[in-house]
């Protein structure tokens, strides 16, 4: 990450000169501060310049009160080649509550800017859609939980209000509301379909039913005590979230995580990927009523979860990651057990794949269903499994190696078709790849300690960013230290938050009965999205 960081900054300097207030480099990430009025212009430049082609990866705000009377807006871009980060920042001073929206140019910003309005009361001027996002309509006016003056344990009142869904009118057009409670054992969310006959003309996703106030709760923790909370942001991604958080804190504390711990982290992350992907392959088949594959898929998933339990005492691998390393070490004999079990599982799974591929009627249901084209995927910054099924060649394990991936060399699964089948195939390929990676881990893992002691305390206001390729996609954490090891701000970004809006496009022209199938092929987290 340290390589050529100056070049993009030089480009910005050359193009914008005086509008740039300040340039700094922190933990290898270049930060360019501009006046708030210049943000849209600079952001647009970063986004469209042929040599930069920055995708917006994260947009968040920080309330610097009580120390400084300002809000800070941060725009994190991932540049195309090499995939470096570039951070734009702008300040809102004193009582200033308005900032110019970048959504008209950069589509991926739309939910972020609405989120910032809800959480901080800062308004993105020129945003085409300023309805509430996180706060449902019954939340009282003026409730902005992430403002520092808002107590974390406020008891919210209730007001009247209705979300204004977008309507399509015309003969034969009607609306189908679904949720928040769904038919299966799944998380709550609301989907509003407009249909004319069978095909879906419009889908609007209304989420955030599960908003628990996670980001505010972080501010009650110290840097080292928050790990259990990160494991509960999205329970199915326990390792992904805790790892991303721990990495950010380790940067702040100046910790060099021992190699053995890095390998163990890769092992656990791949185990998590395995049990989720195995379950998903089965569940996708189940939504076409092919229950046989579902039975096998869920059986294999259970096999991995029981393995997790034997290795760590938790089926979800909870308590594995901690700041500085890992809490669980495995003896050599344990590694042999893991690899032997995975050898059996791979054979088992390959046979299941053959059964799935031989089924023409299944293929017929999966092919061309829920098509997400590459352009839409790029515009929304779609990532992870869903992105890779639409030819978005991104994987943090390869692009920004963390844990032990610098020595493991991940082969990235990539498909162009963007349909349900492609998303299933990405998962299938990744299952094989995860098994291969775990074999590699066993072959290469060095001996040594699994935990590093902290070397320094971060100054208040110091921050770090970290990315992890969880099984769904890129998980981002921004952690800013407060006084005495407290957390001043923690921004959590599950890939679901980015991918949810894209599903609204993938369903167009499909029929409602195919929606569960499409939704399953995305399999996004509601908890991780709603926070």
């Amino acid at each position, binding site marked *: 990450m340290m390589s050529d960081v100056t070049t993009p900054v030089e480009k910005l300097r050359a193009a914008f000169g005086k509008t740039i207030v300040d340039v700094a480099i922190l933990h290898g990430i270049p930060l360019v501060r501009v006046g708030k009025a210049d943000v849209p212009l600079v952001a647009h430049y970063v986004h469209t310049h042929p040599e930069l082609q920055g995708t917006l990866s994260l947009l968040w705000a920080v309330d610097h009160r009580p120390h400084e009377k300002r809000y800070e807006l941060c725009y994190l871009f991932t540049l195309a080649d090499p995939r470096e980060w570039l951070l734009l920042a702008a300040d809102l001073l004193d009582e200033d509550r308005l900032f110019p929206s970048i959504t008209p140019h950069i589509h991926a910003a739309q939910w972020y800017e609405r989120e910032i309005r809800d959480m901080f009361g800062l308004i993105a001027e020129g945003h085409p859609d300023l309805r509430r996002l996180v706060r449902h309509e019954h939340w009282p006016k003026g409730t902005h939980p992430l403002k520092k003056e808002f107590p974390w344990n406020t008891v919210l009142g209730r007001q009247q209000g209705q979300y204004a869904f977008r309507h399509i009118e015309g003969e034969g057009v009607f609306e189908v509301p679904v949720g928040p409670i769904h038919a299966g054992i799944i998380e*709550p969310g609301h989907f509003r379909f407009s249909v004319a006959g069978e095909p879906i003309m419009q889908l609007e996703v209304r989420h955030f*039913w*599960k908003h*628990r*106030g996670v980001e505010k709760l972080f501010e009650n923790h110290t840097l080292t005590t928050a790990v259990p909370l990160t494991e*509960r942001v999205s329970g199915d991604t326990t390792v992904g979230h805790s790892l991303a958080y721990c990495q950010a804190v380790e940067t702040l504390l100046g910790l060099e995580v021992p190699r053995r711990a890095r390998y163990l982290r890769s092992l656990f992350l791949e185990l998590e990927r395995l049990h989720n992907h195995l379950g998903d392959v089965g569940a996708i088949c189940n939504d076409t009523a092919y229950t046989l594959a579902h039975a096998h898929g869920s059986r294999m998933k259970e096999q991995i979860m029981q393995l997790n339990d034997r290795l760590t005492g938790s089926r979800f691998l909870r308590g594995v990651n901690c700041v500085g390393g890992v809490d669980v070490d495995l003896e050599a004999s344990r590694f042999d057990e893991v690899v032997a079990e995975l050898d059996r599982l791979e054979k088992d799974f390959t046979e299941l794949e053959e059964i799935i591929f031989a089924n023409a009627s299944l293929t017929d249901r999966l092919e061309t269903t829920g098509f997400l084209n590459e352009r839409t995927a790029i515009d929304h910054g779609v990532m992870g499994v869903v992105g890779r099924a639409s030819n978005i060649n991104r994987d943090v394990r390869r692009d920004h190696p963390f844990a032990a991936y610098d020595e493991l060399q991940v082969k990235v699964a990539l498909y162009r078709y963007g349909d349900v089948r492609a998303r299933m195939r990405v998962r299938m390929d990744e299952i094989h790849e995860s098994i291969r990676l775990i074999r590699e881990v066993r072959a290469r893992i060095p001996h040594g300690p699994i935990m590093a002691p902290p070397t320094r305390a971060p100054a208040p206001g110091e921050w770090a960013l970290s990315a992890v390729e969880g099984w769904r996609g890129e998980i981002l954490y921004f952690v800013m230290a407060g006084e005495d090891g407290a957390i001043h701000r923690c921004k959590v970004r599950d890939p679901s938050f980015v991918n949810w809006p894209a599903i609204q496009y993938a369903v167009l022209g499909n029929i409602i009965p195919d929606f569960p199938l499409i939704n399953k092929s995305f399999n996004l987290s509601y908890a991780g999205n709603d926070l």
Partner: protein
Amino acid sequence: MFRILRKSLKTGIVTGRYPESPESEAGASPTAGQKARPFRRSLTIREVDTGSCNACEMEMNALMNPIYDAERFGVHIAASPRHADALVVTGPVTVNMEKALKEAYRTTPDPKLVIALGDCACDCGMFKGSYGVTGPVERHVPVDVKVPGCPPRPAEILQVLQRLQGQRD
């Protein structure tokens, strides 16, 4: 066809292949046993997630996989609260889900049971006190059985259900 048959034969019966869990520390209200009487052979569950981290959901789903196969004890999952004998509630009840939970409870026909699954549902767990949370579940609807754990293992959930159904002491 042969491929599928071969696979099934090779796999064999996997049901019951899980380690027994230690006795669950689930607590039941004094009337729970009596309320559960009509459901001894068949208990239909509607799962309501009121803001879980989704690990509790995943374990509920695991209950229906071939290994735990709760169906063999007459436990079914209903698509609507209107068809349910029991609500299994997970999560700390968020501000946004409070109304939906009450609604689901109201539409579940009597007699009915409410099972609070996981630490969150029992006492809000890590999210206790947060502005986003109004739970725990028993603040909003009467709870008959509380199953602690974060999340409780499927074997444990199964044990609790069987005990409730009087199929196990």
